[in-house]
């Protein structure tokens, strides 16, 4: 496969590119879904192809094809250069790339049990049992699904990179929906997006779907008659780690993407409220807040050996003691921002997509409190968990998130269950109100397998180390 990539890079250089790289990717994806005790869908997809990136002047040209021959690869390289050249009619500054050592290496993540080797019948039985149990315990609609991605990629660059990686990702999810007279309620396990990681089938076994199926079905049914979450302009809010993963993803992860900060995503995904001139000085949150982007975390969904530009995975400080100190970057965006090196956060969704800045494992470092200590320390508050809806503005500042379930907290005790809890806030003001942070025993690497970005659209796999947190004075209970 390296031969095809080399042919493409050589052809791009011959056609005038001052830099080129090529990725051959071979990806298998398997997914199965069950509904109400029956397996309903089983899809196995195999794709292989080459994507070539060529840099001329201020713009990238990218061409991808499923034809894998030396001549087709060379043609793809020449096409990529021709496309980059066409960009010159609407030209900007000359794009530079930060230096990175040209490595020749192989990398693979740890897999204890190959998920594609687990018999389909066994995997189906797992989903059938979980959905059947949810139905038996009150769910009107019970869904369960798993996904497996097995990706091998070969990178060659005109600077001498020659890296192959084998990355296996998998995970599962399930949810129970109960229908009421005027609304529906849903409970998901282990979260709305399930749980995914760069691990083998052992991850799915550890989830133990069957053991949690009855509980979530009963909770969904109970929510139909629970009291509506009361409205408060300012109340103490404790957020479980699954919802915190979403909070981090939306209001920190996307906000610190350097391509957004530079305006390169302005028309679609949006920009960021962060100003590069303020890095190292801007207060992002309270002193308890420490966030890193770390692609080296074993088993987390945003982990890899090298990003798609050949930059080795390494941890990057994003927020230190509440101060914004870092960004998610690639070689071109880092150079444009005057940073000395890439943050190693560039990935593409398969061979047919241009690699771009994506989150790795962006998450909170743990603090010292347990969830029970947070509840005990709260006189009047709301506890929420499991994301249900998520909306945030194009600067990643104003958010409103809904959760599947909540509980009132009175005098240090968990009280009655409430339905349809929502909360809203402004990023730095909200993070500034963080006053209790979950401890290491509650630190969990949540995986988000469906982060959308870019045009044409790309789906990214990101990780979010997270803990329960308490925030003071939050607006809760926004209704339509």
């Amino acid at each position, binding site marked *: 496969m390296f031969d095809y990539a080399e042919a493409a890079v050589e052809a791009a250089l011959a056609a005038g590119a001052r830099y080129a790289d090529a990725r051959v990717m071979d990806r298998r994806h398997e997914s199965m879904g069950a509904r109400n005790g029956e397996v309903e869908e089983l899809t196995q997809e195999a794709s292989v192809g080459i994507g070539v990136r060529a840099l001329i002047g201020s*713009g990238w040209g990218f061409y991808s094809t499923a034809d894998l021959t030396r001549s087709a690869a060379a043609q793809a390289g020449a096409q990529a250069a021709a496309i980059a050249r066409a*960009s010159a009619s609407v030209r*900007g500054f000359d794009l530079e790339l930060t230096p990175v050592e040209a490595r020749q290496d192989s990398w693979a993540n740890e897999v204890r049990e190959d998920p594609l080797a687990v018999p389909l*019948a066994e995997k189906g039985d797992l989903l059938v049992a979980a959905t059947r149990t949810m139905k038996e315990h009150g769910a009107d609609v019970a869904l369960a699904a798993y996904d497996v991605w097995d990706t091998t990629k070969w990178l060659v660059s005109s600077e001498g990179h020659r890296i192959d990686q084998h990355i296996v990702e998998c995970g599962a999810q399930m949810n129970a929906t109960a229908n009421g007279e005027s609304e529906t309620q849903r409970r998901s396990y282990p979260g709305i997006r399930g749980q995914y990681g760069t691990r083998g089938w052992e991850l799915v076994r550890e989830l133990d779907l069957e053991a949690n199926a009855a509980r979530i079905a009963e909770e969904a049914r109970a929510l139909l008659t629970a009291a509506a979450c009361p409205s408060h302009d300012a109340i103490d809010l404790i957020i479980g780690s699954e919802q915190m993963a979403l909070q981090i993803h939306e209001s920190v992860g996307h906000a610190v993407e350097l391509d957004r900060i530079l305006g390169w995503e302005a028309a679609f995904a949006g920009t960021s409220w962060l100003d590069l001139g303020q890095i190292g000085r801007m207060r992002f949150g309270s002193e308890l807040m420490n966030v890193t982007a770390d692609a080296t975390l074993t088993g987390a969904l945003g982990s890899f050996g090298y990003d798609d530009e050949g930059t080795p995975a390494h941890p990057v400080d994003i927020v230190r003691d509440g101060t914004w100190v870092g960004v998610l970057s690639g070689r071109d965006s880092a150079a444009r921002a005057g940073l000395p090196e890439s943050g190693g956060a560039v990935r593409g969704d398969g061979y047919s997509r241009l690699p771009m800045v994506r989150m790795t494992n962006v998450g909170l470092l743990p603090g010292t409190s347990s969830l029970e200590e947070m509840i005990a320390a709260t006189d009047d508050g709301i506890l929420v968990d499991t994301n249900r809806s998520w909306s945030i503005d194009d600067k990643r500042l104003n958010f409103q998130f809904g959760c599947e379930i909540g509980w009132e907290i009175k005098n240090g005790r968990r009280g009655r269950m409430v339905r349809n809890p929502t909360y809203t806030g402004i990023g730095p003001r909200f993070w500034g109100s963080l006053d209790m942070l979950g401890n290491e025993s509650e630190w969990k690497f949540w995986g988000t397998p469906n982060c959308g970005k870019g045009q044409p659209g790309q789906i990214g796999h990101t990780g979010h180390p997270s803990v329960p947190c308490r925030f003071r004075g939050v607006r809760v209970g926004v209704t339509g």
Partner: protein
Amino acid sequence: MSDRLLDVCERVLARVGTQAEAEVTVTAGTDALTRFATSFIHQNVTDAVRRVRLRVALDGRVAESAGNQDDDEALSRLVGSALDAARLRPVDPGWPGLAPPSPAPSIDHWDEATAHAEPQERARRIGAFVRAADGLETAGFCSTTGETVAFANSAGSRLTGRTSVANLDGIARTATSDGSGRASSVRLADLDGSVVGAEATRRARESAEAGDLGPGRYEVVLEPACVVNVLSFLANYGFNGRAVEEGRSFVRIGEPQFDASFSLADDFGHPMAVGIGFDAEGTPKRRVDLVRGGVTSGLIHDRRTAKALGAESTGNAVAGAGPWGALPANLVVEPGSRSRGELIAAVARGILVTDFWYTRILDPRTQVVTGLTRNGVWLIEDGRVVRPVTNMRFTQSFIEALRADQVRGIGSDLTLVGGATFGLGAYVVPSLHLASWNFTGGAKG
């Protein structure tokens, strides 16, 4: 092209033989997109598309395989993989069987020049957009797609279709505002970068130095991109056979759930539509009236939900849609007779909104959705736009917003808008004047 793709279908079906029921879809073409930001082209991509999808049913045991290679060895692997998987599956009680042979509509949403557009042609339109901004910073994209699809199944169906689509979509930016402009068509030649850029520039300049407006219920004039956003939720969570079957939908057929002036259809044959004339199961598309004169009148089905609910497939099956079920790709709102200016003139006190952003549903049954405004928002008083306002968050039931006596005016400005939120294809919609919209906060909290 279509004969070559049909030949791939035949080679797959020959490998399946009599072992199972089978349907094959082969797609080929070119997806190209040129992106610009900070007023220059920074990303420029072309993908030579090739996909082969096979679904087999072996005595009711169903499995699907997909790939992107069409050599003999790859096709044999594809077939073997699907059959092996099917043998391990239990019988699917909801399997509806294959679509019977039926001709697709003889409508060709196709333009050869668009399907094979060179990057220079997209760059030329972007250049015109940037120049029209007259010094304002700009960002956006111009895309061209040309795809041919062949479908065949072991029940004897053989179909081919093709579609081209071009989009130009961008913003112009002042120090305090963004304004958007966009155009979509089957033909790239229909897209004028200077016109779209001038529209974005006007919106950016006219929404500069916006002031805050307090939360509350306001009349609204929603421009077409907002209307497409609303329809995506109504369609995907409401007029969806799967959602109805599962009891998650608000839809009650035969009841006046909407304002009497509101009519909605899925209509592949509309002259402004784009797309292929059959779905992933080989069912031809046809017009489906979803709302007629305010009365809910129809649902979107694939073969599975049609079987479950005793209906017929409407030709809206989507490969890999999973628990979503069927989705409409060509929604059309019946236009009214009022110009955009006349819609604004009828507003006592309200808000004109260009775009919605990051809309998410809180409950599918009540259709309560939260989101924000974007790319140009203005206060209207006594029928006149009086000042720009900063972006606002809303939390609003979309079904409530369109119920009886809530639609005060429907525009004549039918517009094709691509990239429907959570949807497929492109919808053809006018602007709407609605009696009430619940803005729950400013963008600053």
